[in-house]
């Protein structure tokens, strides 16, 4: 027993010493991009913990923190997000001291208004699922196109009809769907930390109370969409039906349609039926959440 305890103590002190050495190395100047990659790739756990700690502190200071696993996961997720950006963009800053550069990057993120989409309801499994989908749609076109499927249950053909796309764009939609099914969805679930058990539980809830589940999903997805729509280009505001009509009939704004209609439930209802030359004359679409890709 005593031997085991001593072994644990020794192991802990060894880990601490390693950590200190890594931090010291991160504080030194790196001169080339390759050197940067090498130093940083060896210090990923240290940097992840550091970014997570900063995010926790930000949440505490802004009165948004609670001591529960949901908040811990949220802080970890955003710490990882900052670290990913640092790994890619930090290379262009050499020569630099990686640790200080990383600290400044996180501080810059936290000095922005609403650096991330925080809402207590978005930390629960359903909220996390929706937040993950919409957040991913902002950086991934596969996820963006898949959002039509997850929100309304449409396939690639429906998406092409609703958004009024031409032949060239249509091929791309099929590829987006395929990639999302193959790897994109699972990767997103991993990133938001949704376990299989949580996904199964969500599926059961949906089966038991479909209407209530969908209306709750609609409420939460609106919160997420209104935050993440800020990542759209500046010139993509909501439009009236006649303005959407002009865009569809004259065939411009292909990107506008794909991006905005996926991220705005209201505009989808407004522009319903314009892209299909009258073939979609049914009831306006309501949110019917699809859990699986």
């Amino acid at each position: 027993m005593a031997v085991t305890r001593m072994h644990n103590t020794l192991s802990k002190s060894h880990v601490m010493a390693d950590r200190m050495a890594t931090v010291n190395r991160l504080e030194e100047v790196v001169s080339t991009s390759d050197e940067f990659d090498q130093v940083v790739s060896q210090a990923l756990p240290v940097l992840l913990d550091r970014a997570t700690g900063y995010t926790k502190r930000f949440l505490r200071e802004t009165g948004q923190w609670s001591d529960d696993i949901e908040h811990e996961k949220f802080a970890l997720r955003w710490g990882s997000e900052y670290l990913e950006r640092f790994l890619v963009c930090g290379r262009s800053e050499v020569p630099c001291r990686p640790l200080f550069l990383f600290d400044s990057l996180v501080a810059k993120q936290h000095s922005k208004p609403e650096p991330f989409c925080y809402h207590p309801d978005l930390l629960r499994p359903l909220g996390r699922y929706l937040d993950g989908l919409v957040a991913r749609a902002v950086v991934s076109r596969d996820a963006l196109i898949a959002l039509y499927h997850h929100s309304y249950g449409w396939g690639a053909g429906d998406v092409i009809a609703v958004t009024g796309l031409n032949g060239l764009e249509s091929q791309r939609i099929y590829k987006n769907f395929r990639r999302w099914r193959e790897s994109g969805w699972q990767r997103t679930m991993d990133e938001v930390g949704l376990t299989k058990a949580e996904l199964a539980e969500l599926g059961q809830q949906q089966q038991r109370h479909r209407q209530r589940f969908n209306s709750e999903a609609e409420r939460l997805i609106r919160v997420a969409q209104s935050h993440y729509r800020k990542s759209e280009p500046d010139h993509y505001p909501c439009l009236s039906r006649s303005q959407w009509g002009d865009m569809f009939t004259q065939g411009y704004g292909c990107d506008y349609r794909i991006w905005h209609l996926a991220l705005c439930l209201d505009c989808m209802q407004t522009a319903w039926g314009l892209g299909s030359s009258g073939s979609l004359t049914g009831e306006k679409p309501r949110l019917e959440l699809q859990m699986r890709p």
Partner: protein
Amino acid sequence: MGHEEELDAYRSQLLESLNSRPAIRSWSDPIQVYINERRVGELEGAGIGATLQVQCVDHIETVQLRAEDGTLLGGLTAPECGYRTDRVQISADTVELSVHNMAQGGTLSALFTPAPSFWSRAWKSIADVTDRVVARRPEPALAYGMRMVAFTQALLAIAVVGLVTDRITTGRTSDRTPSPVVQTATLSPAPVADMAKFEQQLDELARMQAKVDDALGSQQKGVVQLQQALVKLSSTQESFESNVLTVREEIEKRLEMVGRETDRQTRQMASRGRVEQEQLEAAIQNLTADNHRLSKEVVSLEEYNQGLKTKLQTAVASASKGVDPSPERLLKMADSLQATQQQMPFLFWVTFSDGTSQESIDKWVYEKQGHKGAVSEGWQEVRIVPPAVPPDRFLEQIRGEKIVKAARISQ
């Protein structure tokens, strides 16, 4: 699973994904371009030399390149002011990023260069060899043309050398195998003539090459001068445009200010004029009413004054004449007194029936040729020219009128 274990598992998963970061990108997929985490467009992944130019109102802080599946392929952090360029390697392809931040906003230029194909690599190797042959490093703009010329020259030289060798070999073979006389006589001088011819051609070729080199050199200089001129021109144009913009903004500002000031003054003057007009109208109305009232009072006062004067004259005459006035004189005095009394206004008080309008009252007073006086406890004072009939009878007449409720002389 406990919370700690679940968190550890999640943390490990995130670290693993950060370590691997697989980029699933087929050769034809576009690359999404983000500025300050906001999507601004895409680079055609299949195009040779696809470019994207973006001008932002705000400073560019970060540029990110992402695959269709969202993988972060590369990016850079831009300085607050000035230039930053970076070359992002995506598999074998390259994206050259160039950011320029100015006082007002920034610009991004992204150039996609796909990995070279087999044939382009082969072509490049040949071009490198020929470059080494000509031992020159031309400007990029001229590189292609120079390489073509050099390559053609090299091929020509090889062909000429081959032909010469062939001829020499043929000549030697002919020497070793003696032929009929005619043949030796005709064949032996041929290689010598050919050799001279080829030498001449080689000389010409060398001269041509020298000329081409000279021409290329002068062209190169010309291009450099042209580029310098273009740079100057573009900087002049930029400064001119910025000056024009500044002047235009200044003019617009001034026009706007002048317009606003004029509008404000006009509005102020108009409102002041309206107020003054209204005040003037009210004053005129008041003055008219006062004037009317005063003229009436003046008339009545003059009448009263006249009566008093007459009375005074009579009294003075009586006093000066002393006693014993004649009966004729007394009669005259009585007449004059009566006349004076008649000239004095007759005053009485009247009340009107319930519901009589003010208009009817005014009309009634007007018919009596009277003037309204004070109102006291419902009684209206009325002054008229003394009636021809005695006061009691007059009052009786008045009381008989429809709108009159009661009438009396004393207050």
